[in-house]
């Protein structure tokens, strides 16, 4: 009788220790992974690289936490569930912000593109008034040539813009083109001032 009692006690204790009933919050985990995946699809990694990396890191920490809990005899996935939910929410929020950011950069690119085209026209108009002083025509020819190259680059950039893949890259290209045209305009204006030509 006594032996049977102790045996039951020991068995109950062992079973209780070996089979912890807490389960991995798989649904929350899947939701977090899916949210991160869809955030990547909308280029969160391009427009918010640091935030996206931090989120990925949080996912890694969470996965680690799951395994840590699974390694224990007494498991507790409450924190994991909270973290997974937070990651899913944050990923969705970031993905939403991407659209806003994308629209901002797109608008910036559009403005810059329009600005570059206006500057190009301004440069072309200045060329007509450019001085014919020493080496004037050669310089004007060189400038015309440079403008043609920049114009071609703007056409390529417009195609990149229309593709909509990466507006950040478009902005960088437009910056280079705009700097180039501004340089030409400054050069032309300086020459005109020196030659006493009214701008």
């Amino acid at each position, binding site marked *: 009788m*006594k032996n049977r*009692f*102790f045996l039951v*006690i*020991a068995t109950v*204790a*062992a079973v209780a*220790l*070996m089979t912890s009933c807490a389960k991995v919050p798989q649904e929350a985990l899947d939701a977090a992974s899916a949210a991160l995946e869809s955030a990547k699809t909308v280029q969160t990694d391009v427009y918010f690289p640091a935030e996206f*990396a931090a989120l990925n*890191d949080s996912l*890694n*920490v969470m*996965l*680690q936490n799951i*395994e*840590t809990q*699974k*390694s*224990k*005899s007494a498991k507790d996935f409450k924190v994991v569930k909270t973290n997974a939910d937070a990651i899913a929410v944050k990923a969705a929020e970031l993905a939403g912000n991407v659209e806003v950011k994308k629209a901002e950069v797109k608008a910036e690119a559009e403005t810059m593109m329009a600005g570059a085209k206006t500057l190009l026209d301004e440069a072309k108009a200045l060329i007509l008034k450019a*001085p*014919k*002083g*020493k*080496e*004037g*025509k*050669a*310089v004007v020819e*060189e400038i015309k*040539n*440079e403008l*043609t*190259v*920049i114009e071609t*680059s703007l056409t390529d950039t417009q195609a990149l813009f229309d593709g909509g893949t990466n507006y950040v890259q478009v902005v*960088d*290209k437009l*910056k*280079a*083109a705009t*700097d*180039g045209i501004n340089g030409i305009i400054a050069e032309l204006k300086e020459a005109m001032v020196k030659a006493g030509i009214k701008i």
Partner: protein
Amino acid sequence: MKRGSLVSLLIYLIVAAFIIFLTVMLFRALVPEPPQPEVERARAAIARARDHRSEVYSPKIYREAQNNYDSAMAAWRSENDRFILFRDYERVVTFAAIAQKRADEATRNTIIRSNNLKANLGSEINRMREEMQSFEKIFLSMPLPKDIKNKHSRGKLLLREAEIDLEKENYVNGNVKITEANEYISGAYVLARKTLEDYYKHYSDWQEWATSTINESRRTGSYVILVEKIPGLCHLYHGGKKKYTFEAEFGSNWLGDKKSRGDMATPEGKYVVTKKLSGGSTKYHKALMINYPNKIDIQEFNERIRNGQLPADASIGDMIEIHGDGGKGANWTQGCVALRNDDMDLLFKYASKGTPVTIIGSTLTLEEFFSSSQK
């Protein structure tokens, strides 16, 4: 219940609690410790490497770190699927240690590589700027083929893009751009220099013509005219000494000898003034007609027709003059030499029918020309 039974129940319970306590202690002692610290160190190292942009600067080592971390996690999951007392996390720890090591290596490598790329980009940008300025100083006014000038302009734009990458710390992209810019800018420079070197193949002729013309002036004490196309100058010598130097403009395709009518090139060779034109006899302010084509020009023209360098119906051209209405700041004539009107007045005053006119590329050697252009 009797007192004796209560005491014995209490003893049972105490013994049972003790057994449970012992079981728990034994169990906890037998369950292996999870490898969380090792895996966490690996993750943190990878995060550091990523923050330094190792994905970009040390992709291979970074990927290795990442793969080992994934293996550590997979091994951990696999061990956790086993019965708790039979788990062994040694492989997890090994993978995590390799991951951490590789991630640290990626970080170190990235710091070195990005610094090197930054330094290289900066120095290449400076070098390209100098080469670009040098091209513009030397070749800007030369009638080089359009593709050479296009190459240069394209390179200039890429150089600006590389500068933006440097500002934005995109050293890998920047180095790609500067390499491309180098291909265009250096390529244009090499082609332009080659064009000029080809032109300079006639230098010994130029030197001989110039020397003999000046010697003739010295010997006879007469006036001679020497025109240099590269610096764009027209000199008047008297008694072997330079008396005046005027700025001159030429045909728009002046780099090279005149080959046929309409090629917009200014001829090179030894000529003489055949006519002095002024008033209504010339459409320019004043003009000195020269005897182009001379015998050598005709000989060379016929040879070019014979060997197919010129079409059979090509004509040699004529009416080459030194005339006024210059000073436009461009090489605009159809092959004549144009001077400012007041300069033309002076030249017209001293020149007469028979005055030697020698037109050459330059009296300077190619090297002298390049070093004088750099100043």
